[in-house]
Structure formats: C-alpha cells, structure tokens
C-alpha cells in the first residue's frame, strides 16, 4: 500500500471540524457577551482560573484550541489554493507551523496556571 500522510492530516481536521461545530459557536457567544459588557460569571478571573487550573479543564481547553487551530489551518490551506495561491507546499508549511505554534503556546500557558 502506498504511504500517505493524509490520515495524519485528515484525522485532526475531521476531529477539529466537529469540535468547532459543537463548541466554538457557544464559546463565541460567551465572549461576545463579555464584549457587550455582560461578562458571564463563568468568565470571571476566579472561575476561569479554577477551570483552567483543573486537569479536566486543561484537557478541554487544549483539545478545543489545538484541534480547532489545526482544522482551520488545513482548511485555510485549501482555501488559499482555491483562491489561486498555488504555492501549496509553502502555504501548508506556514499554516501547519502556525497551528503547531499556537498549540504549543496554549500548552505552555495552561501549564503556568
């Protein structure tokens, strides 16, 4: 069977797409409320600190951000191609590296909490 890196790219893309669909709209709604000046109690410093301080909270935050970043990066790569930017290898490297950097930053910040 021919070797392919597609499963490695595709699995997190599909997982990320599902995570975005289920979680991101409601999270945007929460920060939108904060943007309008009604900060939900769950977004207060103490609540967020307690959530991000727990093991399950770290896991959820990292999972949502890392998978969403990866999925967005992969889709943005395809979108660049569709808009006529055909330097696919360069685009893929830049976007995947950006997603990896964002995921590592997320892990580092979480470990500081």
């Amino acid at each position, binding site marked *: 069977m021919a070797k392919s890196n597609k499963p490695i790219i595709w699995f997190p*893309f599909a997982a990320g*797409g*599902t995570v*975005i*669909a*289920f*979680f*991101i*709209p*409601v*999270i*945007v*709604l*929460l*920060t*939108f*409320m*904060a*943007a*309008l*000046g009604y*900060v*939900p*109690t*769950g*977004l207060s*410093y103490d*609540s*967020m*600190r307690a959530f*991000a301080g727990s093991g399950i909270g770290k896991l959820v*935050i990292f999972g949502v*951000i890392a998978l*969403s*970043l990866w*999925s*967005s*990066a992969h*889709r*943005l*790569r*395809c*979108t660049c*191609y*569709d*808009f*006529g930017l*055909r330097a*696919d290898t360069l685009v893929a490297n830049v976007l995947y590296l950006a997603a990896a950097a*964002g995921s590592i*930053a*997320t892990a580092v*910040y*979480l470990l*500081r*909490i």
Partner: protein
Amino acid sequence: MGEEMSRNLGAGAAREPQSPPRAGRVGGAGPLIREVPPTTWFFRHPRYLRYMAREITCIFVGAYCVLLVLGLHSLAAGQPSYEAFLVALRSPASIIFHLLALAASFYHAATWFNATQKAMPIQLGEEFVPGNLISGAHYVAWAALSIVILFLAGVF
C-alpha cells in the same frame, strides 16, 4: 476536503461549466486542457459559491482561536492582565469581529452537521437510517451541549 474537491470541481468546470462536479478524469485521449480561471472559478455556479463561503469560515474561526490563545496568555499572566483582556474585548473592532465569528461559526456548524448524513451514513439491516435523522440528531446534541455550557458559564 477542499483540496481534492476543488481540483475536481476545477476540472469539471473546465469541460462543462453548467454540469455538477464529477470525479477526476481517468485516462482518455490527449492532455486535459484546463481553462479554469484560478481566482474566479467559484463565481460560475452557486454551489461553488456556497462551497467557498463554507471554506472562508475558517479564516474567522482561526482568528478567533488566536484570540482565545491571547486570552489564555492573559489568564496565565494574572488578574490585572486578564481584566485588561476583558476590557479590550469591548472595543468596537472586537464587537464587529465577534459578529463575524459568530456568523462564521454557526455557518460552519450548520454545514458540518448537514454533511454528516453524507459523510457517515448508518445502515440498519437492509435500510439506511434517513439522512435527516442523522443531521437532526447532531443539531439536537449541539443545542443541548450549548445550553449546558451556557448554564455552566452562569448565563442562566
């Protein structure tokens, strides 16, 4: 998803602009001449436009994820920093960005759940489970999950 699809769409559009996309050409005589404008092909058919609209949601979702990482950075840096982040969210640019991200994420969710019935059809015995039931179940789960998260966040 996008990559293969767009190449196939492009090839299909080159031969018969009005026809639905077909699988890539296999064999056949002579080279395939692609007269597809690389930057404007998606204006040729409403379905290509809807495809691109779905793809473009990733720009806003990706940017929003960056915002989340910045928020996490401020949370890790201590209370004054986090409070400053919450205040920064209230700028007009942030409110406009949130509206765009809200629209993009809801459009992504709806198209993603609509696609589930094609991506993972379920067969029970001889019959396939109706597609709308599969997508509908995802919508119900989405609504329930969103309500639980809003409740946990103290919205109500």
